[in-house]
């Protein structure tokens, strides 16, 4: 717990699981969950470097902005997903290949 590498490995694992979720899932909400995992991995890296390397609060500030961005992204993306469901009756992103049908 007192070494940077344990945080970097955790962050890399979290990022890879998020990336796997994004590339293999077909459900749009599941893909959103993968994006949240990736953003959390980035946040861990920012805060870990802030504590171990730069010794200031810049990393914390960036993490606050990332959390804010994630909240905005989730709200807009879910509104789009709801529209997709109302239009098609499913939220399979493989079949969502037209803006209007």
């Amino acid at each position, binding site marked *: 717990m007192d070494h940077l590498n*344990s945080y970097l490995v955790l962050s890399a694992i979290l990022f890879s699981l998020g990336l796997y979720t994004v590339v*293999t899932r077909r459900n749009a909400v599941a893909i*959103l969950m993968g994006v*949240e995992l990736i953003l959390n991995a980035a946040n861990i890296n920012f805060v870990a470097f802030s504590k171990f390397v730069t010794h200031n609060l810049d990393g*914390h500030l960036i993490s*606050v902005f990332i959390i804010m961005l994630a909240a905005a992204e*989730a709200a807009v993306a879910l*509104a789009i997903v709801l529209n997709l469901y109302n239009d098609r009756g499913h939220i399979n992103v493989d079949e969502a290949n037209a803006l209007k049908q």
Partner: protein
Amino acid sequence: MADFIFWVIWALIVASAALVAFGNNLIHSVFALMGTFLGVAGIYIFLNADFLAVTQIVVYVGGILVLLVFGIMLTNKISTAQISQSSVQKGLGLLVVLGVVSIILTAVLPHDWVGAIAPLAFAETVEGIGRLLFTDYLILFEIASVLLLGALIGAATLARKEL
């Protein structure tokens, strides 16, 4: 003791994130995601980020997770009870992801980060974050407020029945 708790949280994050990535039931994945978010909040505490830990719980667990549950409930037929999800191209995806993560680890781990051994002692971060937010990061802060307003209006407009 603190070391033990750290590794428990570490394992909790990895296990619940794996359930998000590999689970077959969408509802199970969302609740596993809650475990990941709470675990990351614990990691923030180990990283002396008290403000971020609380923000993580309030925004992620209290906000985004509830939004995701709403998204699932509104886009599935609940009466079928089994909300399953499937994955495509698992083998190829696993291959690509393992390649990416091995590149990351081989690039990052051998590097000797300056000061990586001597961590900063705990100090309250709320005052520092507030000070930076209104000095160095003021432009970013204002842009963030505009972005949030845009997201609010955009989401409300998109989610209306009569688009």
